[in-house]
């Protein structure tokens, strides 16, 4: 009787439509949030293993949160709306460089925008990415699948080029590398220690994940999924492909833009265009495929897997006394991720999230097989 909904009667549709209608899921969610918001900072303050030093927070948790946000963004577009994109890196870059321009002040001819606060710059970075996302989404009204993927790939290379070549974006620094304000000031508080940065990311990512979850289970989310599954039937029901696809591009790019700005400002601190190249796009895409297309939870699972796998492969053999070189580790990562993606695409296109869902279904019926 560990995981059952028996005896949990819902007395209204509003309850039935709650984000997690089953009590055990709700408990799991609150526990996770409590660990993330309270336990982790406490462990860090008292420097308890495994939070001794800053490694875990700085090198794993912060990138995990930010990349999970980017994965949610791509999942909205690819998982929910069915539009394959290889341009995630570009949209992250647009978020990052726009935020950089806003935070350092913009002047274009007669238009002068004074330097803006960090948080507002990051959000505006998201809006810039959304705007560009809509433009690059327009081809999706005519082309599909692989052809669209090629169009987004073009966006990726175009923006790689743009941010390297057009010095205005980098405020004419000689190296082409730019730095975020130091210290980062959020609402008057300087955020310097890794645990503080972690909390900033956690708050942003939690809030955005909730908003994304709301969208995908509402009317617009149904329009995205309908367009993904049967665009013709959707259109004949009055769902306009123009609105469904472009709104998915906008929301998705907004998320990726904010993630890019966080990645640049909070995680990297100083960066160059290489941080957002095609490798980044593929990394996010792999997270989404492995975690589960069309699942917010899956975006987190996928991000965790892709980030943790290389670390495990690096640490576990060492701990066991098996010598392993860095090259072998990266080769192994390629092999495992590649094989896993092939296997998932064939057997379970909905990734870890669906495997988890199936496990829960089994648990609900346990000990009966059906």
């Amino acid at each position, binding site marked *: 009787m560990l995981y059952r909904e028996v005896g949990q009667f819902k007395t209204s549709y509003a309850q039935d439509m709650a984000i997690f209608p089953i009590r055990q899921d709700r408990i799991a969610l609150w526990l996770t949030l409590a660990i993330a918001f309270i336990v982790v900072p406490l462990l860090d303050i008292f420097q308890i293993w495994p939070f001794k030093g800053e490694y875990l927070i700085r090198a794993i948790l912060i990138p995990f949160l930010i990349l999970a946000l980017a994965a949610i963004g791509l999942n909205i577009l690819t998982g929910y709306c069915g539009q394959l994109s290889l341009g995630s890196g570009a949209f992250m870059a647009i978020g990052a460089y726009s935020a950089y321009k806003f935070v350092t002040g913009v002047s274009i001819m007669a238009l002068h925008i004074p330097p803006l606060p960090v948080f507002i710059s990051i959000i505006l970075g998201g809006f810039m990415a959304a705007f560009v996302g809509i433009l690059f989404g327009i081809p999706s009204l005519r082309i599909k699948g692989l052809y669209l993927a090629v169009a987004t790939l073009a966006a990726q290379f175009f923006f790689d080029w743009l941010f390297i070549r057009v010095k205005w974006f980098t405020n004419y620094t000689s190296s082409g590398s730019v730095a975020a304000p130091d210290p980062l000031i959020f609402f008057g508080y300087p955020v310097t220690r890794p645990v503080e940065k972690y909390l900033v990311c956690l708050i942003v990512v939690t809030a955005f994940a909730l908003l994304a979850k709301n969208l995908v289970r509402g009317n617009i989310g149904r*329009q995205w999924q309908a367009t993904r599954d049967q665009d013709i*039937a959707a259109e004949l029901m009055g769902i306009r492909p123009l609105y469904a696809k472009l709104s998915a591009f906008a929301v998705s790019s907004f998320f990726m833009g904010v993630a890019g700005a966080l990645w640049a400002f909070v995680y990297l601190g100083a960066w160059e265009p290489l941080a957002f190249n095609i490798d980044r796009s593929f990394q996010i895409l792999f997270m989404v495929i492995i975690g589960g297309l069309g699942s917010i939870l899956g975006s987190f699972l996928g991000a965790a897997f892709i980030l943790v796998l290389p670390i495990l492969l690096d640490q576990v053999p060492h701990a066991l006394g098996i010598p392993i070189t860095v090259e072998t580790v990266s080769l192994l990562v390629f092999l495992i991720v590649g094989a896993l993606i092939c296997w998932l695409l064939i057997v379970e296109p909905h990734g870890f999230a669906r495997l988890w869902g199936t496990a829960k279904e089994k648990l609900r019926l346990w000990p009966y097989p059906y």
Partner: protein
Amino acid sequence: MRAPSGPEIAAGDVLLAVESVSLSFGGVKAISDVSFDIRKGEIRAIIGPNGAGKTSMLNVINGFYHPQKGRITFKGQTRSKMRPHEAAYGGIARTFQNVALFKGMTALDNIMAGRTLKMKRNMFWQLLRAGPALAEEVEHRHAVEEIIDFLKIQEIRRTPVGRLPYGLQKRVELGRALAMEPELLLLDEPMAGMNLEEKEDMSRFVLDVNDHFGTTIALIEHDMGVVMDLSDRVVVLDHGIKIADGTPDVVKKDQAVIDAYLGVAH
């Protein structure tokens, strides 16, 4: 949105008139100079051998295909061309010959998707899923649950439709169309591939929809028994040409119809 709303049509008056419509794909003539009408409140069957142009006719009616010639008058408004979503706004819903459900979504979400046009809350409220957006979700959920009860598919609401057997998929698809509260419902072979019991259930639903909600129905069906039982009037197509039009009894005895079904060369 330009919704072709037009005047209210009284029961028995012409709801939709098709006038000398011709449609061809390259060299293939799918429909040649066909005219007929559908009256408010009736069940109008469209029958004919394979490839007669029945599905194409439905596609013309709801704006998916644009005929090269002819006019269509729906609720008093005449047009030769309209976009599919405009037809949806105007109150035309349909099901498909080869089920076209949203495979990755649950039965409930499929039917909820049918209410898209009726949901007005903007993205801001949907993001928060609070206030007006939540109220709207709940309101439409009530309507959808009524449809679910009506079609007796309570047990499968949470099942992704891709996993449902064919007969139930057809039922969910009918539910999705009903969720639009259409004025004209186009059913393309709703009973194809069903066993006898499922056919009887589906016939019952079609009659009930027509009775209770007064929905006008255009029905394509190959099973003659079903057609004779359900429909008020029948139009018969063969090779894109209308060969008969009238009550089931009249059509059944028509020599051209008998020939078409027996495959007599013409």
